[in-house]
């Protein structure tokens, strides 16, 4: 079978791209659309570095075929900031030092934003379980969890910034 032409809405824009029927959505985003923010870590759904939001649900784009995206809405890391204005989750990752090498960061940011979009006041426990599918081999996770809780507080317009017990 030859290449397929797929039409989808990506970060709010109507896009068309060509893909092999066996290509993953991650392949199409990176290689056809030049959206290289989503990373391939494991390629088997274990690490979450390729996390995107598909029709409102976060998924591993390495476990979605590009051909499945026909007519769907996809949000990637590239759509999280508004122009040069970082999303509070992104800003808190920087402020709290929630990244070192940065490879896992796009996946964590997309997953964290997805959490706060549907649960504006998560507990530390909820944040940790929500992010269980995102692996980070640098930070040890604590700074990531603090950044997410801080971003949540800011989005709720609370001033308390220290909700995690030591």
């Amino acid at each position: 079978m030859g290449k397929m032409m797929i039409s989808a809405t990506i970060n709010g824009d109507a896009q068309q791209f060509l893909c092999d029927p066996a290509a993953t959505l991650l392949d199409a985003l990176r290689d056809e659309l030049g959206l290289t923010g989503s990373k391939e870590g494991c390629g088997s759904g274990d690490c979450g570095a390729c996390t995107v939001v598909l029709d409102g649900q976060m998924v591993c784009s390495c476990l979605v075929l590009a051909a499945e995206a026909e007519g769907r809405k996809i949000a990637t890391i590239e759509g999280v900031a508004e122009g040069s204005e970082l999303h509070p989750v992104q800003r808190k990752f920087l402020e709290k030092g929630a990244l070192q090498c940065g490879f896992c960061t796009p996946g964590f940011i997309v997953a964290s934003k997805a959490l706060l979009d549907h649960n504006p006041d998560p507990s530390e426990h909820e944040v940790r379980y929500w992010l269980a599918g995102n692996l980070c081999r640098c930070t040890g996770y604590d700074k990531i969890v603090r950044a997410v809780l801080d971003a949540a507080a800011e989005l709720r317009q609370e001033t308390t910034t220290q909700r995690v017990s030591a």
Partner: protein
Amino acid sequence: MPSPQFHSPETVEQASALLAANPQARVLAGGTDLIVQLRSRRIAPTAIVDIKRIAGMSGIRAADGGFAIGAATPCTALKDDKALAAAWPGVVEAANLIGSVQVRNRATMAGNLCNASPAADSVPALVAAGATVLIAGPSGQREVPAAEVTSGPGKNTLAHGEFVVEIRLPARPQGGGDAYLRSIPRTEMDIAVVGAGAALVLDASGTCTSARISIGAVAPTVLLVEAAGAALVGSKLDDAALERMAEAVRVAAKPIADKRGTVEYRIAMAGVLAKRVVEIARQRAEKA
């Protein structure tokens, strides 16, 4: 490897015809097993049939007092259905132990069943709950108990051209409760070393009138342990009855030893988990 054909049929009949026409075709629902196998070249299908565009394949509807769960319904959608989560919490919790949120937003119970891993988390819960599976194929549709869908590790009993259309759960019986637990060395993102499911019915006096006990990851397929259920029926789930139930579970367990656990550990843990799930199911039945 030549590229497979990609099909997205809009009716059950079209899907069935596509699968029947090509023995190398594979069904795509959530893709969390299929795409991993495709990428690692464990499988090389010449056609992929995405069933998600078929009407009714995603979602949960009331049926015969119980529930009909479309084959492409992701695990997280089960949790969002309050009526289903209230009626069969063990099934919904089991399906939501699989993988991560990202995985559960795609993975389906029908896929978990057809992939036929002995350690599949949703299957012991479905078997305990008495779920049945509606299968469509070239010669029409048939309904089979969930336990009959798998025949061994990675092997299912679907005939050529057949695929699962929906999973059916009965109405929760008066005084009924269900539960599933698994043993893993981590807290999340792991594969069951042992799993156990229970579905009980208690009468007004607390006497058990029906019990279905299932175990996973301790045999080539998930097992319904009828002797374990029988050990509870007629009792008030006292310690002696629970111990007879656990012994029946240990006798039925025929595990392998691998990196996740020894034979002895799995057998012992199967008895422990069976007692724990019965206790949770009992508490739920008392509230029912």
